């Protein structure tokens, strides 16, 4: 079974046809997707700006992480779920769309950046938790995170302008 056949099978599934054909399903799921994404980006930006030393300097880095991270992850789960539902309505169209592909790569890069930060830079967090400048690696992680998420939002919006209608 090649990938193209798999995408078409997804589109033809009851879920795929429901999201594609219902008058309200797509816009409603898309609205939830937007709310989830702005929550992800908004909460991550709070942490990124703290790492960059541009805001919340009177907050400990670990405290800021504790306050934001579970909301980032919760909203990310909603974004993946709603994004998956939108995807199955026109799977081959999305899979073949260059902006959708870029968006997926950028989400992956944002996750990789976060993983590297938490696996390596975070180990010494006790040394720079408060009243100490964040090390360069942490600032780079914050800057890259902001950049990746801005590009994720742009790519997502670009999908809507370049997507081929389902065949």
């Amino acid at each position, binding site marked *: 079974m090649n990938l193209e056949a798999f995408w078409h099978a997804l589109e033809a599934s009851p879920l795929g046809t429901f999201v594609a054909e219902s008058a309200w399903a797509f816009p409603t799921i898309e609205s939830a997707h937007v*709310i989830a994404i702005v929550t992800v*980006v908004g909460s991550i*930006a709070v942490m990124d700006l703290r790492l960059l030393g541009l805001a919340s300097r009177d907050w400990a880095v670990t405290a800021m992480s504790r*306050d934001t991270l579970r909301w980032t992850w919760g909203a990310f789960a909603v974004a993946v779920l709603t994004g998956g539902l939108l995807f199955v309505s026109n799977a081959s169209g999305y899979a073949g769309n260059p902006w959708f592909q870029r968006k997926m790569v950028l989400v992956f890069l944002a996750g990789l950046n976060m993983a590297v930060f938490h696996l390596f830079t975070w180990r010494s967090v006790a040394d720079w938790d408060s009243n100490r400048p964040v090390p360069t690696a942490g600032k780079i992680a914050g800057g890259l995170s902001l950049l990746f998420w801005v590009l994720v939002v742009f790519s997502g919006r670009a999908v809507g302008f370049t997507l081929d209608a389902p065949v």
Partner: protein
Amino acid sequence: MPSFGDLLYALTEWLRTTPLVELSLWISNQPLSLMIQNHFWVIPTIQTTHILAIAAAFGSVLMINLRILGLTGGSGTMTQTVARFVPWVWWALLTLVVTGIFMIVGEPVRELINPVFWIKMVLVVVTILVSIWFQARVRRKMADWETKRDGRIAMRAGAAAIILLWCTVMVAGRWIAYAPV
């Protein structure tokens, strides 16, 4: 009983009889509007800025109101939380208004002759007014938020209402694209 869809159609029909039609056509012939219409990437770029501003505003709204609801932010005082996040809500809102105006100039018919657009505008005004009122109440209570617990249930109801109002604005914003115009 007429459905919500019928109501939207009726509202569109009525909008078509107002001077908004002429205004939209006039805007769409202005140099700035023509510039936006003739450059494919301008609209997605403005929309992206608009969404990023929503992320800044709504992220800050969540940090303040989830703190009031006791769901996050326990590591800072209420006074710290308000000082950190309230200015971001208003600066982001200014960005939303500016990018919103550019979107209207770029696609005046899509917005001004659209019932969902006007529903969103009403929701925006209501959200702003309720936020101004609620913010004054939060500022009055924030100094001894950690020690005095009276009136907390009302404050939590207000916080939940603000979050919900922002969500309805976002839902209405997305539905602009699907309204019968």
